[in-house]
């Protein structure tokens, strides 16, 4: 009887062991997977939030940003690191973002740098200039299709800025000074 019981227990144990082993077989890759996801998500969130580096998108992906309908004022600036007047006005957009940090204002800097220079030019530039506004790299060479969708009057020259929100919408193919930007924005901000 004891012997039978012993055998039974042994079998139970070995079954249990098998179960654990098979569970481990699933669990180990699962754990690896989860930790991989955690690590990558940590790094990617680290990228966009802390380093303020760059989202790359085509025009269809960018387009919703040009037609939001809420109580926020949007400034969408088209620029590139190689465009001297664009580079000159970047600090003004930074100052504006800083000054109206508590207001409902969203500044997005849409870079038209060459996509193959993302890591060699654009990201180093953003770090050097300590840009805090969001930067998007628009990777869409078919500009004849999308330029008129930003604004019919845009010839494609940069710098150019779209300002909209609270019933206002205007496209500027020009270089701004800080005063001009502030004067444009101020009446649009709700308290």
């Amino acid at each position, binding site marked *: 009887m004891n012997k039978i019981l012993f055998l039974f227990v042994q079998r139970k144990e070995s079954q249990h062991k098998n179960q654990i082993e098979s569970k481990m077989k699933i669990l180990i890759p699962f754990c690896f997977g989860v930790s991989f996801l955690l690590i990558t998500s940590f790094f990617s969130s680290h990228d966009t939030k802390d380093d303020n580096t760059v989202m790359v998108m085509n025009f269809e992906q960018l387009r919703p940003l040009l037609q939001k309908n809420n109580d926020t004022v949007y400034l969408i600036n088209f620029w590139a690191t190689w465009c001297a*007047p664009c580079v000159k006005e970047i600090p003004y957009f930074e100052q504006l973002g800083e000054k109206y940090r508590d207001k409902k204002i969203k500044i997005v800097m849409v870079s038209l740098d060459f996509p193959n220079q993302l890591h060699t030019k654009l990201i180093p530039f953003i770090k050097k200039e300590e840009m805090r506004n969001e930067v998007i790299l628009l990777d869409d060479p078919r500009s004849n299709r999308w330029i008129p969708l930003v604004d019919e009057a845009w010839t*494609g020259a940069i710098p150019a800025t779209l300002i909209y929100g609270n019933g206002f919408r205007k496209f500027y193919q*020009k270089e701004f000074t800080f005063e001009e930007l502030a*004067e444009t924005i101020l009446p649009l901000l709700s308290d």
Partner: protein
Amino acid sequence: MKKLCFILSVFALSVIALNAQPIAVGETAPSFTLKNIDGTTVALSDYANEKGVFVIFSCNPCPYVQAYEERMIRLHQEFAPQGIPVVLINPNDPVSQPADSFDEMKKRAAERNYPFPYLADDVQQIYPAYGASRTPEVFLLKNKGDGSFVVTYTGTIDDNYQNESAVEEHYAANAARSLLDGKDPDPSTTKAIGCGIKAKK
């Protein structure tokens, strides 16, 4: 009221800024006489025996120009023998952009073996007359045969600055072929990202 004033003044400013539109297709091309890098002067009237001219506003440092430089040369090589040569005009103020000085223009043209004239619009009267706003910007002019030229195409060279092998629409070349066939180009106007022209301060 103050708010309204602000909005109105912003509107006024933007109207001024948006003035820079290219001359309309079908209009007479403004004539020019400009200094070439070889020391001669080149005038639009010098092309009286050609079927047309590609006037391209261009410059030295703009990455979009550089991306299209080879294609501008090939445009000339393909169409000059057929009666539509290319002429480059640099509209930038060399004081605000020293990389576009006359000497730098000479250097660039020599390095890249420009087969066409490279003219300096340093007085900055020609590019506003054409309503050019960026480099590169193409104007295809058709010789009317009465001493005047008419604009038949304005815009970009093709639809992919990044990758020539992915080009689907050869706008400028197609416009030239239309001109040679006696047809109107379609499209007759295109848009492209380019470097804003540097005006004198």
